[in-house]
């Protein structure tokens, strides 16, 4: 009986303290609410509107018919048209489109002439994302009912398919570079998010702010050590991925390093912003989780960006992880260069600069 009284004393004390910590209390409600709504809508394996391009060498009424049919499936969004193969492959490398439909010059011959035993055309597919690849592979046997003279029994598919970058469609090839983005998000944001809060909690900050150290100096000094930690983590993940899971490292090291450094800087800045808002280390950790979950689920790590509804995509665009996910897969798997990925690179750099300024302004050197 006495034991029950003691337990209830602790229970009530705990609840009382919880209700005083507004942020934690908010998180208890907001975390399931927002995340559930977000991911309920966002997570979708039925991919639609995959950006693809077309190289129409035939330029005939038949080629236009085929293009219209493909477009009608709504699986793809035929947004680009290229003049030649080289142009099309470059677009895939840059990540502008996930696939290109090539319709050859002798399309008419293949459609109804003497070449009709050969496939009509070819899909060039960026196979670095398996879900997207599966959706595109379904188009191989796109029924073209009006195709004349084709014996029904003939087992020749309508289109030939070439899988770029991950022809065996092995999962690690897609997951390992993505994992790099997730792990860096987790550790980098958490480290810096707790860094200044820890000094606040332990009272070190009261001493620091009476010294001549400037806010920006403090922020930069807090970030730099973690950059090295981030680089070490990157080496471990990509090194192991390459050695154990045979993930190809197609891009040049310098560009991998460049992309990673940009992302590390952006993530650390994100952590700093959290750290100027949070009052306790617990709050900082909760806010990190709040950023981490969408970084895993919306960034394209587990579910393709193309499959998400527009609002979810807009949220994803604000997360550094989404941009790094594109960059690192591009550089590591498709041998893309940083200048091919300049939009994402610019986003990360601007995020860092704006974030650093915001954190510096938010962090006053006073106790007001």
């Amino acid at each position, binding site marked *: 009986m006495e034991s029950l009284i003691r337990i209830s004393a602790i229970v009530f004390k705990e609840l009382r303290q919880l209700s005083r910590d507004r942020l934690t209390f908010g998180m208890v409600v907001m975390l399931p609410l927002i995340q559930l709504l977000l991911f309920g809508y966002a997570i979708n394996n039925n991919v639609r509107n995959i950006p693809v391009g077309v190289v129409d060498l035939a330029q005939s009424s038949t080629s236009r018919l085929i293009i219209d049919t493909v477009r009608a499936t709504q699986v793809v969004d035929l947004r680009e048209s290229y003049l030649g193969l080289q142009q099309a492959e470059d677009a895939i490398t840059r990540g502008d489109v996930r696939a290109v439909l090539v319709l050859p010059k002798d399309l008419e011959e293949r459609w109804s002439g003497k070449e009709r035993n050969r496939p009509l055309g070819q899909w060039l597919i960026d196979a670095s994302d398996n879900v997207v690849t599966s959706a595109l592979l379904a188009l191989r046997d796109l029924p073209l009912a009006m195709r004349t003279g084709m014996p029904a029994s003939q087992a020749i598919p309508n289109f030939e398919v070439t899988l770029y970058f991950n022809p065996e469609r092995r999962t690690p090839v897609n997951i390992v570079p993505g994992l790099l983005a997730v792990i860096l998000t987790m550790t980098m944001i958490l480290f810096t998010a707790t860094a200044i809060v820890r000094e606040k909690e*332990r*009272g*070190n*900050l*009261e*001493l*620091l*702010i*009476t*010294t*001549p*150290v400037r806010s920006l100096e403090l922020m930069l000094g807090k970030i730099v050590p973690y950059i090295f930690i981030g680089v070490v983590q990157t080496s471990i993940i990509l090194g192991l991925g390459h050695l154990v899971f045979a993930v190809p490292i197609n891009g040049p090291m310098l560009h991998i390093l460049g992309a990673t450094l940009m992302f590390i800087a952006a993530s650390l800045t994100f952590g700093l912003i959290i750290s100027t808002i949070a009052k306790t280390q617990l709050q900082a950790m909760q806010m990190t989780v709040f950023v981490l979950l969408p970084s895993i689920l919306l960034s394209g790590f587990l579910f393709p960006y193309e499959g998400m509804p527009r609002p979810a995509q807009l949220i994803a665009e604000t997360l550094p992880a989404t941009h790094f996910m594109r960059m690192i897969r591009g550089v590591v798997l498709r041998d893309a260069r940083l200048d091919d990925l300049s939009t994402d690179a610019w986003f990360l750099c601007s995020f860092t600069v704006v974030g650093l300024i915001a954190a510096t302004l938010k962090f006053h050197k*006073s*106790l*007001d």
Partner: protein
Amino acid sequence: MSTLAIEARGLTRRFGRFTAVDHLDLDIPRGVIYGFLGPNGSGKSTSIRLLTGLLTPNEGTVSILGLQLPQQAEELRRRIGYMTQKFSLYGDLSVIENLDFVGRIYGMPRSLARARVEDRLERYGLTRHRKQLADTLSGGQKQRLALAAATLHEPELLFLDEPTSAVDPENRRDFWEKLFDLCDAGTTILVSTHYMDEAERCHYLAILESGRKRADGTPQQLMHAMGATVVEVLGPNLRVVRKQLLELEGIRSVAQLGEQLRVLVDDKIAEPIAWLREHPSLDLRQYELNVVRPSLEDVFVTSTSKSDAGPR
């Protein structure tokens, strides 16, 4: 160059509806040890934070070492030192690493920093503990380390917020010797405390209560200007006598110290012993009554009990 280290006029700071510091005026000359004496919550720490530029006042003006706050706060930081109430160096760094860090934060050249660190280790008896983590130091050692860090850049003005609250009496004496050494070398020191023995060592004192300055001057002046006579009462049943005394008009405070009562009688009563003996509601025949020298605690009690009517 102004001869005052600190000059404040009408300094006021509110937190919501609570006024922590209420129209404080200060004129603190250079080269002295100036004490803020007051109970917990009297605004000592807030005043120090206002004077160091850590907090912005709601009203009033402050000039420290001839610099205006808050406009010249950054410039001032190089010339003042601040020792926080709570130990604020890094517990997971060693003594020498902490001092090294502080030296670099103040932008000292390597050789100068090294020489100063060695000097402080020597001066504050930390040479043997140089490699020890700060968290494992004793209360007194931590205090000396904090003082070493606060004086590493040789500030002209040093703020100490309850510096010896976690230190035993012997270490406290020791610590004060160091403060007098610093003062002798020209440093102005402002120290807050709620210990009488500590306050008594200051050249000048300001007694704070509820954010207001109740009295100021040298400890001697304060004792003379107390406005009350101290009467010691010896005898049995002191708890009962104390209650009776507190009922009387003209009694400022009654405190029991072992086998005697320390009674503060208002100055308006010219002959306190006769007055007490002849008072109709008292029977002090079997008691011994003596007028004694006031202590600083008596000063403190009289100056802080003027405002609120509640019994002390």
